[in-house]
C-alpha cells in the first residue's frame, strides 16, 4: 500500500478538468482530504483493535497469574512461625555433661516459658496483680504499663517451675501463654561451676529455645554439645564430682581461716594431664549465673576463674624449674655448693633472702630452704636464652590450649626484654606470671619422669608421654628434693606432712602487684605446688590463696608455708583416699610384710 501522504491532494489533471468545467477545484482537495482521513482512520482503527486485543490478553494473563498464585498459596500448608516446629523435635538436643564416673554435671529439663499476648488479656489489672504475686521480682505497676504499651507480644519469664506454671494457669487468663522449652540444669549447684560455665537461651521461639553455652566447657564444646549427630551422647569430663566437692569444701574452709580474698586449686593427674578437680572461690550457681561486672576489676566477680584466668606471679614455686634446668644441663649436681651471700646486687637492684642462709648452700638446700640468691646464681649460670627456651618448652610462656574458653585469657606475662636481671628474678618466680594450671602442668612434667604434660578436661585412656623435657634421673632428684621441702626441719612446707601419705612440694609467696605500679608490701599470692605420693607422684595439687593472712603466736603470717600449705595438706588428707591411694602405715616394714603376706 502506498503512503497516502505521497499522493497529491490536488491532482493536476483533475483540477484542470474541473477548471475547464467551471467547478471549484477546492472541492476536489476537500474530497481527497476526506478520503485520506477515512483511510487513515480505518488503518488506525484496525491497528488499535489488534493492540487492544494484545492489552486484553496481557491483562488476562496477569489476572490469571495472580489467581493461580493465590490458589497455590491458599492450598499450601500454613507455615506460621509459631507452628513451624513441634515441641518434640528439640528435646534433648544438647548433650549432657558427666564426670569421669558418669555422674551428671549438666543436663536438660523440660520446662515452660511464660509470655503474654496483651491484646488477649481479659483483665490486665488482675493479670498484673496475679503475676506480681507469683513472681516476687515482678512489679504490678511495671507489668501493667508494659501490657498497655501497645506491644502484642512480650516475654515474662524464660523458664518457670511447674508450681509457678500451675499458679499462672490458675489465674485463668487466656492472654498468658506457656511455651515449652528445655532449660539447662546443673543438679550439683555451685560444684564445678567454673568448669561448667553455664548456658543461656539463644534464639527464642514460642515453643523452643536454643541453649548456648556462655562459659567454661559449655562454651568450649558448644558446637559438639549441640550437634544433633551426637545423638544425645553425654560429654565425659575428667573431673571427679566427689573429689571436686571435697576440694571445694576444704578450700572454702581454708579461705575463711586464712582470711583470704579468694582461693583456688587444681588437682591433676601427673601422667595423663587429666584435671580431676578445678576449683575457684568465690564461685556461683550456674543455674542462676550472675551478671558479669561491667566496670571495675573483673577478678572481683565470682565468675572469675582464678585457676584458669588468673595470671599471677607464682614466686618460689619456679625455683624447681631453675634447679631442674641446672641439673639437667650438667651445670651442677644436687650437692654443688652455691654462694648465697646476700644481698646480691645487680644493676641497681638487690636480691635478698627471706632470712640469711649463710655464705653457701648446696643446690638441694637452695631449693629446700628456698634461697632467692642461690637460685639467682644458678640462673646466672644458665643464662637468659636457655632459661627462656626451657620455660617455653614447659609451656609457661603461652596460653594453654585447654578445654575452657577462659584459658585463652590466661596468657602468661614476662618481660619483653629478657635480660640478665630478668633471668635472675624469673629464676625464683618474680617478673613472670602464669596461671595455676600452667604451674600444675609444669610440675607434672617435672615429676612424672620428665615428659611433657598438657592439662585436659577430657578423659584420657593412657599417659600422655609427650616430649621429654628432663631426664628420668633429674626427675627423680627433683622428687626427692620436693619431698625434703615437706619432710625436713628446714623445709618451707613442713605443715604438709600428713600421716599415711608422702607429700612433696614447693611453696611460693609473691607480693601482689599494685595496679598503680610497684608491689604491695602486705598482700601476697600464696601458692603451694604439691605432688603425691612423692616417691612416685600420681597427682599434682596446686593450691593458691589470694591475700591470706593469719596470726600465729602474735605474728601476722602471709607466706605460703603458713597459709597455702596447711590448706593443701587438708585437701590431700581428704582426697587421697578418694583417689584410691593407699595410705602408708606408720611402720613401712610392717606394711611391706603385710602386703607381701596378702599376695
Amino acid at each position, binding site marked *: 500500500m502506498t503512503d497516502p501522504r505521497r499522493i497529491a491532494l490536488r491532482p493536476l489533471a483533475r483540477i484542470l478538468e474541473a477548471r475547464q468545467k467551471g467547478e471549484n477545484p477546492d472541492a476536489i482537495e476537500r474530497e481527497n482530504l476526506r478520503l485520506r482521513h477515512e483511510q487513515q482512520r480505518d488503518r488506525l*482503527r484496525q491497528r*488499535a483493535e489488534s493492540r487492544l486485543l494484545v*492489552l486484553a490478553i496481557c491483562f*488476562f494473563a496477569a489476572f490469571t497469574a*495472580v489467581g493461580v*498464585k493465590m490458589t497455590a498459596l*491458599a492450598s499450601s500448608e500454613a507455615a506460621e512461625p509459631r507452628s513451624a516446629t513441634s515441641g518434640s523435635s528439640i528435646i534433648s538436643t544438647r548433650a549432657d555433661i558427666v564426670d569421669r564416673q558418669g555422674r551428671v554435671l549438666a543436663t536438660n529439663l523440660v520446662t515452660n516459658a511464660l509470655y503474654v499476648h496483651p491484646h488477649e488479656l481479659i483483665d490486665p489489672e488482675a493479670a498484673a496483680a496475679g503475676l506480681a504475686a507469683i513472681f516476687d521480682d515482678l512489679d504490678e505497676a511495671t507489668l501493667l504499663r508494659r501490657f498497655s504499651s501497645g506491644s502484642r507480644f512480650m516475654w515474662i519469664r524464660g523458664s518457670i517451675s511447674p508450681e509457678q506454671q500451675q499458679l499462672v494457669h490458675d489465674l485463668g487468663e487466656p492472654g498468658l501463654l506457656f511455651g515449652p522449652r528445655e532449660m539447662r540444669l546443673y543438679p550439683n549447684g555451685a560444684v564445678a561451676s567454673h568448669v561448667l560455665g553455664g548456658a543461656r537461651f539463644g534464639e527464642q521461639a514460642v515453643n523452643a529455645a536454643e541453649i548456648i553455652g556462655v562459659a567454661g566447657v559449655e562454651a568450649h564444646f558448644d558446637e559438639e554439645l549441640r550437634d544433633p549427630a551426637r545423638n544425645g551422647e553425654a560429654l565425659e569430663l575428667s573431673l571427679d564430682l566427689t573429689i571436686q566437692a571435697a576440694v571445694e569444701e576444704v578450700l572454702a574452709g581454708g579461705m575463711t581461716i586464712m582470711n583470704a580474698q579468694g582461693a583456688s586449686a587444681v588437682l591433676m593427674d601427673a601422667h595423663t594431664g587429666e584435671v580431676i578437680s578445678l576449683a575457684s572461690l568465690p564461685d556461683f550457681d550456674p543455674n542462676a549465673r550472675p551478671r558479669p561486672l561491667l566496670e571495675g576489676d573483673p577478678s572481683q566477680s565470682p565468675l572469675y576463674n582464678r585457676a584458669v584466668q588468673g595470671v599471677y606471679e607464682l614466686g618460689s614455686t619456679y625455683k624447681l624449674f631453675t634447679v631442674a634446668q641446672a641439673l639437667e644441663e650438667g651445670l651442677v649436681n644436687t650437692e654443688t655448693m652455691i654462694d648465697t651471700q646476700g644481698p646480691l646486687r645487680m644493676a641497681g637492684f638487690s636480691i635478698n633472702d627471706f632470712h640469711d642462709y649463710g655464705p653457701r648452700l648446696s643446690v638441694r638446700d637452695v631449693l629446700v630452704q628456698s634461697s632467692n640468691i642461690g637460685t639467682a646464681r644458678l640462673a646466672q649460670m644458665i643464662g637468659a636464652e636457655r632459661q627462656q627456651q626451657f620455660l617455653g618448652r614447659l609451656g609457661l610462656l603461652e596460653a594453654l590450649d585447654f578445654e575452657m574458653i577462659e584459658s585463652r585469657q590466661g596468657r602468661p606475662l614476662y618481660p619483653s626484654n629478657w635480660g640478665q636481671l630478668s633471668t635472675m628474678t624469673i629464676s625464683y618466680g618474680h617478673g613472670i606470671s602464669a596461671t595455676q594450671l600452667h604451674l600444675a602442668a609444669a610440675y607434672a612434667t617435672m615429676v612424672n619422669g620428665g615428659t611433657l604434660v598438657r592439662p585436659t578436661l577430657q578423659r584420657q585412656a593412657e599417659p600422655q608421654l609427650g616430649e621429654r623435657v628432663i631426664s628420668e634421673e633429674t626427675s627423680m632428684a627433683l622428687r626427692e628434693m620436693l619431698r625434703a621441702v615437706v619432710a625436713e626441719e628446714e623445709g618451707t612446707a613442713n605443715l604438709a606432712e600428713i600421716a599415711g601419705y608422702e607429700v612433696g612440694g614447693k611453696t611460693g609467696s609473691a607480693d601482689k602487684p599494685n595496679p598503680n605500679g610497684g608491689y604491695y608490701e602486705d598482700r601476697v599470692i600464696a601458692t603451694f605446688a604439691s605432688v603425691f605420693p612423692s616417691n612416685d607422684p600420681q597427682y599434682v595439687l596446686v593450691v593458691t590463696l589470694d591475700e591470706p593472712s593469719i596470726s600465729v603466736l602474735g605474728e601476722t603470717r602471709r607466706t605460703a608455708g603458713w597459709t597455702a600449705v596447711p590448706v593443701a595438706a587438708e585437701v590431700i588428707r581428704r582426697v587421697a583416699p578418694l583417689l584410691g591411694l593407699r595410705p602408708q602405715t606408720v611402720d613401712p616394714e610392717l606394711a611391706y610384710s603385710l602386703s607381701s603376706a596378702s599376695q
Partner: protein
Amino acid sequence: MTEMAHGTVLVQSGEAILPRWWRTVDRVTLACILTLFLIGLLLGFAASPPLAERNGHEPFYYVYKQAFFGGMAFVAMILTSMMSPTMVRRIGVMGFFGAFAALALLPVFGTDFGQGATRWYSLGFASVQPSEFLKPVFVIFTAWMIAASQQIAGPPGKTLSLFVMLIIVGFLVMQPDYGQGALILFAWAVIYFVAGAPIWVLGLVAILVCAGGVFAYSTSQHVARRIDGFLSPEVDPNTQLAYAANAIREGGIFGTGLGEGSVKWTLPDAHTDFIIAVAAEEYGLVLVLLIIALFATVAMRAFFRLMKERDPFTRLAGAGIASLFALQSIINMGVAVRLLPAKGMTLPFVSYGGSSLIATGIAVGMLLSFTRSRPQGEIGDILLNRHR
C-alpha cells in the same frame, strides 16, 4: 427549507436520559463494580475494627465512613457515565489542569501526615490525594492530545503529552510516590501503544522504566528494602508480606470464618494495601477468586467493547482508564501473593479510603461513558465502501 437556511434544528432525542443510559451502559460492568464495592464494605467490617480501636473510634466507624464515601462515589460514577465522551473530554481536560495545579502546589500546601511523603491535602474531615484524581484526567488529557495528533496537520500531541507526563512523574517522584508515578507513566504508554506507537518507542519506554526503577532502588532506601525483600527467597517472618502470605495460607479454600481471622490485628495496612489478605483469611480462596474475576471482567469487557469503538479519543481514553484500573488491582493482589515487590497500592473500590474511592468512582464513570454502546457508523462503512 428552513433547515437548509439555518442549519439543523435541535431535535430532542426521542428517549429520556435515564432509560437511554440504562439501555446503552455496560450493565455487567456496573454490576461488577457494585459487587466489588459491597465486598469492600463486607471486608471493612472485618478489617477496620482494629484500626478503629487504635484510633479510639467505635468498631465500625470506618465502615460507615466508607459507605458514605461509597455513596458519593456511586453518584459521581453514574453522573459521569451519563455524559457523552465529548462532555467527559471537556470536563476532564479542565479537571486535568486543576489536578495538575493541585499536584504542583503540594510542596507548598500539602501535608505528609508524618509518613515522610507529602502526598495529601488535609481538609480537616478528610484528606485528598491529588494524584488519585490526576490519574483519570491525565488519561483524558493524553487521549485528547494523541487523538488530535492523528488528524492530518493536527497538533504535535504525542510530544506535548510526553512532556506533560514527564513533568507529572517528576512531581510524583519528588514527593516521593514512585507507585503513582509508575502508574502515570504506564497510562501514557498504554495510550500511546493503542494509538499505534512504533515498536522502538515502546522499547525505549521499557528501558526508561527499568532505568527509573534502578534509580529508585539506588537512591531510596525505602524502595531498596522492599525490592530486596522481594528478591530474597526467604521471607522475614515479621514483615507485612509474610503475614499476608500466612493469612492466605491459613484461609485455605473456604477461609477461617467470619471475624475469625487474625491477620488484621497484625497488619497495619490490613484495611488498605493488604485487604486481599483479610479476604483470603476470613473468606478463603473462593472470595479472592471472585474478586479477581470481577476485576478481570471489568477490564476485559472494557477492552472488547473499545475494540468496536470508532472514535479515536474514546478508544484511547477508555483503554487508558481500563488499563489503570486493571493494573492497580493486579499490583495490589500481586504484592500480597509475592508476585510483585511490596508497593503500597489500594485495591480499587475494595480498599478503605475516601478520596481514592471517589476518584476511582469518577474514573470508572468515565470508563462506563466511553464503553456505552452507541451507533458506530457501520452503515456509513458499507456506503463508503460501495463508493470506493
